[in-house]
């Protein structure tokens, strides 16, 4: 008879399932708000589920008090954070729990975790890896709502789909392109090594070297053409290597690249003090431009490239670099041309400036070759 009872229990069970599963199954609610490179959010996890996973009911009497929950705050945070990872552009965005609250849902009380994360750069695609409770309850689901720039999207995490790349809505193609243009401009302006290299090549562009040393050029047109040749050569060269390195065709160790960039600045500045390749500056700009392109590429790769918009972001970044570069030229050329015939320009700015640049670049070279910090 025992056997029959067992059978019937199971059969009855099937009938009950025909009615409806009585309670709500286990879900957690994850709300993430993306703004730039910052992510804030809220994560609601049922206290029932947390109790099964890490034990909340310390006295085991079935009546869970707020003190018991609060007493396990660190364990709750540690458990939750070990089951959720966010990343953007290949770099992880470390998550923190900033507060623990409670909320009453229709099926019971939930722990509410306030979340905060910073990514390395502006987020266009957020990679989320969710593994909460899947080991204990494979029917558990994580329900995500993602908000960015006023747009909302949703996703469901299941044991079959724990990893999802979330396109940040509202990050339109043009917006993405614009972001990368800004990154390019910004990188040139804060990348002193590129600026100093460019300046070292541009300083003598308003002068001619002859038997009597440095003399001012006669026409603005001559100076302009000289600048144009240097800038074009530099641009062509770094565009080639930036593209090749970003697409993964060529790769160089970053320490080699950074050291070579420092060396290029030293050589370009020394050439102003003891001119060696005075008439072939465009060629030098091209040759060293190839190295600088690798430097740009490492920045771009660190930013994280959305595979869906690889070319767009590459072009955007390059356009940004050129805009930043042209802005510097636009400020430099008129000033230098006006001052070209003065002793101040030829002695102090050109020679003195080049000495200072050489010195700085030598320190960089030393730092980068020996991986040692002298100036921050």
């Amino acid at each position, binding site marked *: *008879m025992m056997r*029959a009872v067992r059978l*019937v229990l199971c059969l009855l069970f099937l009938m009950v399932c025909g*009615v409806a*599963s009585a*309670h709500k199954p286990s879900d957690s609610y994850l709300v993430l708000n993306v703004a730039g490179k910052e992510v804030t959010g809220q994560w609601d996890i049922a206290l029932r589920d947390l109790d099964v996973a890490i034990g909340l009911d310390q006295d085991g009497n079935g009546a869970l008090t*707020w003190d018991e929950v609060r007493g396990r705050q660190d364990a709750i945070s540690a458990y939750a954070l070990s089951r959720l990872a966010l990343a953007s552009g290949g770099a992880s965005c470390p998550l923190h729990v900033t507060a623990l609250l409670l*909320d009453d*849902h229709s099926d019971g009380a939930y722990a509410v975790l306030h979340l905060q994360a910073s990514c390395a750069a502006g987020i266009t695609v957020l990679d989320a890896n969710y593994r909460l409770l899947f080991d204990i309850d494979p029917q558990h689901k994580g329900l995500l709502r993602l908000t960015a720039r006023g747009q909302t999207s949703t996703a469901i995490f299941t044991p079959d789909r724990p990893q999802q790349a979330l396109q940040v809505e509202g990050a339109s193609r043009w917006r993405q392109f614009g972001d990368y243009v800004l990154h390019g401009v910004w990188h040139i302006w804060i990348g002193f090594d590129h600026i100093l290299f460019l300046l070292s090549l541009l300083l003598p562009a308003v002068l001619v070297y002859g038997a009597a040393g440095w003399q001012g050029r006669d026409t603005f047109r001559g100076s302009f053409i000289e600048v144009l040749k240097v800038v074009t050569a530099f641009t062509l060269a770094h565009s080639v290597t930036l593209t090749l390195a970003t697409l993964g065709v060529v790769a160089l160790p970053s320490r080699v690249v950074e050291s070579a960039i420092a060396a290029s600045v030293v050589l370009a500045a020394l050439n102003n003090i003891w001119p060696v390749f005075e008439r072939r500056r465009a060629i030098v700009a091209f040759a060293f431009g190839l190295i600088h392109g690798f430097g740009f590429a490492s920045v771009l790769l660190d930013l994280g490239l959305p595979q869906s918009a690889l070319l767009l972001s590459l072009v955007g970044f390059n356009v940004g670099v050129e805009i930043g570069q042209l802005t510097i030229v636009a400020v430099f050329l008129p000033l230098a041309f006006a001052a070209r015939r003065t002793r101040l320009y030829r002695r102090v700015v050109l020679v003195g400036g080049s000495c200072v640049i050489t010195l700085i670049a030598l320190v960089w070279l030393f730092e980068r070759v020996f991986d040692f910090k002298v100036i921050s």
Partner: protein
Amino acid sequence: MPARFLFAILVWPALFSTAAQAVPYIPKDGRQVVEHLPSRADPVQRELARLRTALNAQPNDVALASSLAQRYIELARVDGDPRYLGYAEAALRPWWTMATPPEQVLVLRATLRQSTHQFPLALTDLDQAVKRDSTNVQAWITRATVQMVTGDFPAAKASCMRLYSRAPQLIVQTCLSNIANVSGQGPASYRQLAATLAAQKDPSPAIRLWVTTLLAEMAARAGDTRAADAYFKAALAVDQADSYLLAAYSDFLLDQNRAPEVASMLKDKTRNDALLLRYALALAAMKSPDAAAQVDALRDRFDAAMLRADTVHQREQARFELVLRKNPALAVKLAKLNWAVQKEPADFRILAECAAASGDADARALVAAWLKQSGLQDATVLPALRQLKVAA
């Protein structure tokens, strides 16, 4: 399924507002009880903890895993909490994705799969189980049930026939009558089952509960309300907490305009979604001021189910939309989606009622076709069929 998909996409973002955006708070008093959990002192929980510990030490012990899964499945039935079904699945994890798992895992996996309405997968498991051991009574019963739920009556009948000489007579007859009653042999199957139960000496309470509940439903379908009421009361005398029985009796009472009895019977059982629905229906029928709050609570639960893209509740949701939210257009959509998956009498009834209320031609055609195909005779659907002008 594209309709469901579209529906989910359109409604989803709006749903979050009700499901997950209440106002979080920090309780003022640390001693405040914030949640009730199963007590660790409870004998059932202690037994489960013991089995879990043993299984953790030997996660590949199939006998241990099966008995833990079995306990969880039983607990899900008693308690109504689907989390236990997830725990059961976790216990079976080493065999969960195997094409040919051990036999005891097959029936359990089928049971869990049908609980999430994965009927074809469940049947694949059960076919394999009976092929490997044609004397596996549990597999034949579960197979008959899944086939009946999906409306494959000839196959379900064939599965029941395999129980002859392998299971007690009462179980064989219950299996057969259950199918015959909804496929054109209403009165005969009802009489046969009643006679078999009467002839049985001292059936176990579980079997008595099961058979009397079925007899009550058969009597209601036959329009014999007096007999139905008596059978329901007899079943309640065996177990007054069985949620399937409570839901079935509530439906009967609601049909008989006896809503106040439903309200008092279910007022403390509203953690259960199916019973909350009946409770809210009763309050609405009584024009109680409390009805609105229960409708809101139900909406929260259906919203939460939709957020996780669950379709297990579509029958109840259709009824909710039709009767409590007065939205026949949405109700008929849900009823049709549900009908594509399961075809029990309750599924047919909500389809017919939604078809009548909405005037949906598709749904009406489905109703007419099923009546013709199955030969179902059900007095509780007659009002809707008359409205649809479909011959019963």
